[in-house]
């Protein structure tokens, strides 16, 4: 048993290393004085960090990124979660189709969605949102849907929701009480995973922000794009800072996902 455990862990570390290598490279780059043709940088410095944090555009872009992320974080589940639950309980046919519909945004390139949304939200249909964070928030919804759908659906698969509702009703509870005291706690874990994945996606998606909002509303990604023209080293600093946020979120996902087996 222990023999096998050790093999497992070796394998896990290998896979993790493979996945983390690019991130490490970026992080090293952020603190490097000079780095070319060697395995490790030649020296380390905090100059790049200092130079970037003194830029007011940086703080503004962090604020804007968070605004959009949190906005989509709050609005999307309010629409997606009830839709998933209703389809799961009452519309089995719809449910089967939903599994396919939610992968559509993955199958459609971001640029197509971005351009199309831009057209819809820029006045042709009476909705004028161009250049405001609302474009981003609503633009994310179709992309965020699968991030909620998959983990919540995974939670629901093991629940017999109809029976739970029936049992709850026969015990004298209202549907609202059943929903808040039983259903929500049961899908909590999927909800957390969805929230975290949605958050990281919203913070990170470059194409959207760039294409949809232009210069009126600089988010972190646009700031990166601007920097891209300048120093690659500064970009690394930014990405590393940024990765701290992402890493914290990922830690929450891992924690929520591993809790599944403890119960």
């Amino acid at each position, binding site marked *: 048993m222990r023999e096998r455990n050790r093999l497992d862990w070796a394998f896990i570390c290998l896979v993790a290393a493979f996945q983390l290598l690019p991130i490490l490279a970026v992080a090293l780059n952020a603190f490097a004085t000079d780095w070319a043709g060697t395995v490790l940088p030649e020296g380390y410095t905090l100059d790049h960090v200092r130079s970037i944090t003194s830029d007011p555009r940086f703080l503004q872009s962090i604020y804007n990124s968070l605004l959009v992320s949190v906005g989509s974080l709050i609005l999307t589940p309010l629409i997606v979660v009830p839709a998933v639950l209703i389809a799961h309980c009452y519309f089995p046919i719809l449910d089967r189709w939903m599994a396919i519909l939610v992968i559509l945004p993955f199958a459609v390139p971001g640029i197509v969605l971005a351009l199309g949304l831009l057209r819809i939200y820029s006045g042709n249909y009476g909705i004028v949102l161009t250049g405001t964070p609302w474009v981003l928030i609503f633009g994310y919804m179709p992309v965020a849907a699968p991030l909620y759908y998959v983990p919540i659906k995974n939670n629901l698969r093991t*629940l*017999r929701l109809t*029976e*739970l509702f*029936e*049992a*709850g*009703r*026969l*015990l*004298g*509870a209202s549907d609202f*009480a059943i929903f808040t*005291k*039983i259903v929500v*706690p*049961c899908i909590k874990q999927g909800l957390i995973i969805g929230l975290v994945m949605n958050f990281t996606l919203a913070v990170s998606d470059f194409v959207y922000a760039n294409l949809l909002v232009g210069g009126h509303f600089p988010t972190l990604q646009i700031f990166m794009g601007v920097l891209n023209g300048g120093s690659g080293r500064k970009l690394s600093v930014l990405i590393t800072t940024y990765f701290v946020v992402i890493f914290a979120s990922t830690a929450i996902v891992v924690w929520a996902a591993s809790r599944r087996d403890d*119960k």
Partner: protein
Amino acid sequence: MSYVEVRSLSKSYDGTSVFQNIDLDVAQGQICVLVGPSGCGKTTLLRAVAGLAQPDGGTIHIDGRDVTHTEAKNRGVGMVFQHYALFPNMTVEQNLAFGLQQKKLSAPVIAEKVAAMVQLMGLEARAKARPAALSGGQRQRVALARALILEPKLLLLDEPLSALDAQIRKRLREELKRLQHQIGFTAIFVTHDQEEALMLGDVVAIMQSGRFVQVGAPADIYNRPAGLAVASFIGDFNLFEPAQVKALFNASTDATWAVRPESIDISKPGKGHAQKDEGPVLKGTVSSVQVLVAILRHYVRCGDLLVKVDVLNTPGAEKFVVGDKVSLRIPKHAISEMRQ
């Protein structure tokens, strides 16, 4: 007026009738078992009584009150589901407390009732566990406790034991019977298992394609089945077609003879039969013997026919082995004449 009274209840789904004009009476303190093959409508009937399915017509009275159009949660019924339907996010105690909390009882009263019920069901060791950590038998015991703690006027059980394995099923049946003696609830129990029905029921109602084919006490149903359909559903039977009756017994009849394997008297030829009762006698050869726990089943070949004969598996009884020539006496009163 009975305690539970269902009158001319009808229900159809998508134009297909599930049952039509069904009547059912259950006396207070009794367990009524609805038994039948899957799809016969027994679960739908139960759900209509629970208020989880709206009947198309007819009335349901519980304890003298018309509940036909009452919401499920106000009918005062408790229900136990086949797959437990426990709340997975709550511990055993929290599951039991849930219904009491909905009634807005005070916390000390709830704690007291829960503790008493936990003790009654022997769940002390698992009171803080979540359903996922319980065995199937324990889960069903919690589900039963959760229904009983509200002291329902009527307890409904929808195949509560079918998902459990044989040993646990047997133990829970005993326990249910014991609980009924102890706290005296009224219940409707749905099952597809004839063994379970006969053991648990004070009254057994056999349902086939949306109607009751026989309703009665277990012993009556076993010994006086209303027809071939009931006879072949409940227990084992030897069936003698009219032509075989003619050939074997030289008797002329237009009915099929149905004889329970345990009512046939088997003995060595010439040794005479213990039972005084008159009846036709057959000669045959034992072709195989099976041990069905407390029963020894003999397959006896008589001409074309393989006759099943059961005797108790007692150490003192006369034993027959494969190849033995035997004589079978079929007591007259044990022959049920069946016409399709």
